[in-house]
């Protein structure tokens, strides 16, 4: 720690002082930076101090300095959400008043309803029906033209609101197929016969025509009540159509036989109460627009 004044040599070419340290014989000039550079640095420093005072800056054990301007990114987000909600309000009000046909007639409104419906579908329905609404084994495909309970706006709304076999809604849709094999209503042979007949309904040539013929009688005795004559389906009962190419639990003989012997039943929750009526309206409109709407 020397207190004597250090003397710097001056480089005769540039006029700058030469730093007294040398690195393998290479020196460094003490060329002063431009004035604006130095001043900018000072201004930035002062700006930073001002920033600490104005905005949230320093953390302490529990919490942080809030800043005198009271700025908060969380409040910002809340404000933006409120602004978005306010911007949606005129559309939402219109949606609430109009019926489905009127919404469909208004391109701007139907775009809005479909966008909302799509988001709601992704949050609430995609878990079972798939993000593309194409369903899965046991979960109905909502894109096709086959509906268990019907695919017009009113029916769809009823289904969404009250669900299917929902345990907490009196008005829920109910249907129950007896376990024909498990409960001994039909013998194993009768089950096989009726399966052969059911498959023949959708145009598949039965492997055993005699079995299909026998199955026709079994069908008439046991199945027509819900599935209708020749398996055309009965929507009031939720009885699936059997004479088409769409099978909820699979369309090969084994899968159909399994369903006759010991049927599985899907459950859909009742959404009234969980979603507000406007959300249900958007959902119904969206599902109706997927290609199968009636």
């Amino acid at each position, binding site marked *: 720690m020397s207190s004597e*004044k*250090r*003397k710097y040599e001056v480089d*005769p070419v540039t006029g700058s002082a030469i730093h007294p340290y040398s690195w393998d014989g290479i020196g460094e000039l003490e060329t002063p930076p431009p004035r604006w*550079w130095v001043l900018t640095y000072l201004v930035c420093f002062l700006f930073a101090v001002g920033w600490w005072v104005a905005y949230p800056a320093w953390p302490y054990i529990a919490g942080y300095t809030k800043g005198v301007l009271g700025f908060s990114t969380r409040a910002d987000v809340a404000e933006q959400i409120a602004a978005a909600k306010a911007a949606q309000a005129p559309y939402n009000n219109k949606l609430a008043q109009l019926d489905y046909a009127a919404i469909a007639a208004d391109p701007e409104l139907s775009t809005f309803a479909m966008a909302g419906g799509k988001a709601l579908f992704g949050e609430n329905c995609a878990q079972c029906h798939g993000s593309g609404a194409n369903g899965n084994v046991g979960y109905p495909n909502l894109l096709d033209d086959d509906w268990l309970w019907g695919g017009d706006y009113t029916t769809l709304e009823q289904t969404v609101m009250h669900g299917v076999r929902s345990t907490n809604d009196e008005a829920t849709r109910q249907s129950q197929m007896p376990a024909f094999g498990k409960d001994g209503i039909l013998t194993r042979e009768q089950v096989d016969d009726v399966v052969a007949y059911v498959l023949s309904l959708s145009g598949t040539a039965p492997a055993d025509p005699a079995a299909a013929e026998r199955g026709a009688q079994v069908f008439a005795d046991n199945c027509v009540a819900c599935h209708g004559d020749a398996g055309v389906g009965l929507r009031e009962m939720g009885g699936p159509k059997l004479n088409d*190419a769409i099978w909820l639990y699979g369309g090969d003989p084994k899968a159909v036989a399994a369903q006759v012997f010991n049927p599985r039943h899907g459950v859909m929750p009742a959404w009234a109460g969980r979603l507000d009526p406007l959300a249900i309206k958007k959902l119904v409109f969206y599902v109706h627009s997927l290609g199968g709407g009636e």
Partner: protein
Amino acid sequence: MSMTMNNRTPTTIDEADIPVWSHKPKTFPKKVKGPIRNLKWAVMAVLLAIYWGVPWFRFDRGPFAPDQAILIDLPGRKAYFLWFEIWPQEVYIVTGLLIVAAIGLFFVTAMLGRVWCGYACPQTVWTDLFMLVERWIEGDRAQRMKLDRAPFSMKKLGKRTAKFAAWAFIGMMTGGAWILYFNDAPTVVPELFTGEAGTAVYATVAFLTFSTFLMAGIARENVCTFMCPYARFQSAMFDQDTMVVSYHPARGEKRGKHKAGESWDGRGHCIDCRQCVDVCPTGIDIRDGLQMSCISCGLCVDACNSIMDKVGLPHGLISYDTERNIELKACGQKPKWNLLRLRTIGYGVVFALAGLGVLYALMARQPMDASVLADRNPLFVRLSNGDLRNGYTLKLLNKTPELHAVEIAAVGLTGAEVTVLGHETEAVPTVELAPDAVAAIRVFVRLPEADWKGSPLDFDFVVTDHGRNLTVSVPTRFEGPAK
């Protein structure tokens, strides 16, 4: 511990005396008169008139589009340029224009040197304007230097305040005009004063006021010398035949003071009056030869010629000339102009090609466009009678400010039936396209089971506008299960 390698006696400096910042001398360009200065005034007047005048030109585009001849509509994501309307996906046209402009700049630079810098660059135009105002308020070079050295006084404060206020006003006008290119001019100007204009508008005006003040008032030649990248690579476009502002040393040297009536024998024509240095807006001495800081404005030419008039010598001791000619003149030979060179021809050809390319892109631009997005989740849907159905989102771009109706058809897919969501009952789906908008429509294509052979089928969506006899087709494919 000295590292100085030369033999001069090293001087020393106390650590405390090393300056915190450097003290670069300021420039105080002197007023100059002459033909080049007049040309520069004229160019400045034209360019400023264009900048402040263009947004006020109207152009009728009908009820659905703005009627400003040149407008960049940022919220609408569109740019209007007379008959042309540029959508964001056509930014390549703007890119093309920038390329044309860059090559044009190279071409001019190879021919005439840095005339862009000296005459047309906004930095030069606005600095000139600021200097003019400065001269009106504070006087010419000598008065300004005196004022700068003078201690603080009310007179100095008054002059400085007046100057800064005038600069701030020009800066505000500059920033204020910039926003007219992005907003409807007659609407936004009153809004600016009533406080109804948007935050972005005020922020832009404020920023450009500040930056204009800073760049044209304070930074000036330092922008050209230290900040501008073009100054750094312009030498790549120079050759022996490029026009540059040149001092003719063979004629000028040996320089020295000259008294009236003295003989010119045995000495050069340069009387070392330093007028060329005093008028230089970048503060350089052109007699040191071609240098990076020279913006080729030619004010030193005017200054020197007026001195030559006074001493009765011919013009042209400093002039626009080529390096080759300087050498030729030094040897007493006739100057040679070599305008058509591989470099200039090359730049000219590329300039023409790029220009034609942009023109073609503008002319070949379709007023309608379409793109298709085939559903991927799921790829296809099996319908109850066994038919297959694919879903598509078709985006239809109507790039005109008018309403149009188009028909949608699938071509090249035998047996297919096309339905558009919301138009299910129409035999040939017809969709209305709003002016200057993108319509996203859902299209379903249904194929009978018998027509599905097990491999994807390529087909086209054909969008037809019968009214304008316009057809756009977009390729896509139909998917189904493997067979």
